[in-house]
């Protein structure tokens, strides 16, 4: 056991280089998935608050289906399933698309609650001055809702960052996958997985600090807004 830690220390620079490069891929998947999730979440969140029943139903089906199935299953459908019917994606794209669609379902609910939190009087007022629904959304509701949804979006990003580790199962060359490769070469599993955990912590802890900061600022913002109203 002491021997293996000695070996781990000798190989540390090599491990650090490989793992930090892999962490960049982890960040790429997180950012890529996040962008798709925000676009889908905003679009379906607006649909979900629509006065049309069918539009609401479409958004509901999207949310319920993608939130009730594990993201690993979704990744396998996209990577292996689509491959079977001739749509071959590289692992990285499959992961980004998978996390994006899955996260979109989660963010739909976040954006819906943000939109619903804006006082109905504001929507009525903008209709009264002749704005259309898309205009109202674009200029009145969404800019205010974005402020409300920032903390839950922050929590979602932290969850996503950790969840990207599952992309190793479709061989996307991210942190967890490269850790596996190093372990197959050196058999130093505890040392390498501990390093991996530390790298994830270095990325997620600052993010959760930031989110908590946003949460407390939003709380204050709300109180101040209430006082001026």
């Amino acid at each position, binding site marked *: *056991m002491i021997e293996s830690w000695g070996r781990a220390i000798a190989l540390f620079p090599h491990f650090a280089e490989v793992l930090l490069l892999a962490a960049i891929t982890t960040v790429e998947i997180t950012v890529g998935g996040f962008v798709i999730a925000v676009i889908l979440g905003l679009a379906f969140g607006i649909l979900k608050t629509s006065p049309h029943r069918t539009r609401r139903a479409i958004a509901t089906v999207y949310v319920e289906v993608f939130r*009730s199935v*594990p*993201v690993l*299953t979704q990744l396998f459908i996209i990577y292996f399933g689509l491959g079977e019917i001739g749509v071959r994606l590289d692992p990285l794209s499959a992961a980004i698309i998978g996390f994006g669609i899955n996260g979109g379902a989660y963010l739909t609910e976040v954006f819906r609650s943000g939109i619903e939190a804006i006082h109905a009087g504001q929507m009525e007022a903008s209709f009264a001055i002749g704005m259309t629904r898309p205009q109202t959304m674009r200029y009145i509701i969404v800019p205010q809702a974005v402020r409300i949804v920032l903390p839950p979006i922050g929590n979602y990003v932290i969850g996503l960052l950790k*969840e990207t580790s599952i992309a190793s199962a479709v061989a996307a060359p991210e942190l967890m996958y490269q850790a596996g490769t190093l372990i197959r070469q050196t058999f130093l599993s505890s040392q390498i997985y501990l390093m991996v955990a530390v790298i994830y912590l270095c990325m997620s802890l600052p993010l959760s600090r930031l989110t908590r900061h946003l949460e407390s600022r939003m709380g204050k913002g709300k109180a101040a807004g209430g006082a001026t109203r």
Partner: protein
Amino acid sequence: MSAMIANLRDWLPELLVAAGDTLEMTVCAFILAAAAGLVLALMRLARARALSVAAHWYIEIVRGAPALTLLFLLYFGLPGIGVTLQAFVAAVLALGLNGAAYLAEVYRAGIEAIDKGQREAAQAIGMTRPQLMRWIVLPQSVRIILPSMGNYSVALLKDTSIASLISAPELMLRARDLTSEYYMPMEIFLLVGAMYFAMAFPLSWGVRRMELRMQRR
């Protein structure tokens, strides 16, 4: 079409057994998370600083790293120091210890949400700390805590799928075995997705009903 029905006849019995394993893993990990989470929450709220700091760091570290790293550390790392776990046990431990950190925060939020004045009032009429917890704080906290625990159980049910990555027997592992046997990943994973839906959707629907009922009171 008839080939598909023949395949379904082969797959379904195996997948249903595996879905049973998934449920078993979910229940075991949930019990562990609920119990260990309670211990952590009590440590977190304890007056002894060492206890509360230890619990705080456990929660921060476990919530900051992916459940998958904890799973791999327990399954692949522990044999290095002479502890070899069965895949199912490692999966329950990893998911349970991971969930404990999450539920500890849920419990704490539930307890802290009760207005301080109520505690002071209970003390003023001579209740001891255990008494006021039992009769004043907890009955009200439960309404805040239960929906979050319900949501956690839905997330846990889906998270058990990662146990397949250490070859623990559950639904996703069985599905992967079947795909390497039949090479029909689209059909098999869609079927498995539908099976997860059939388990997770009623559960999350029930949780939402409960949430609405608790809010109304």
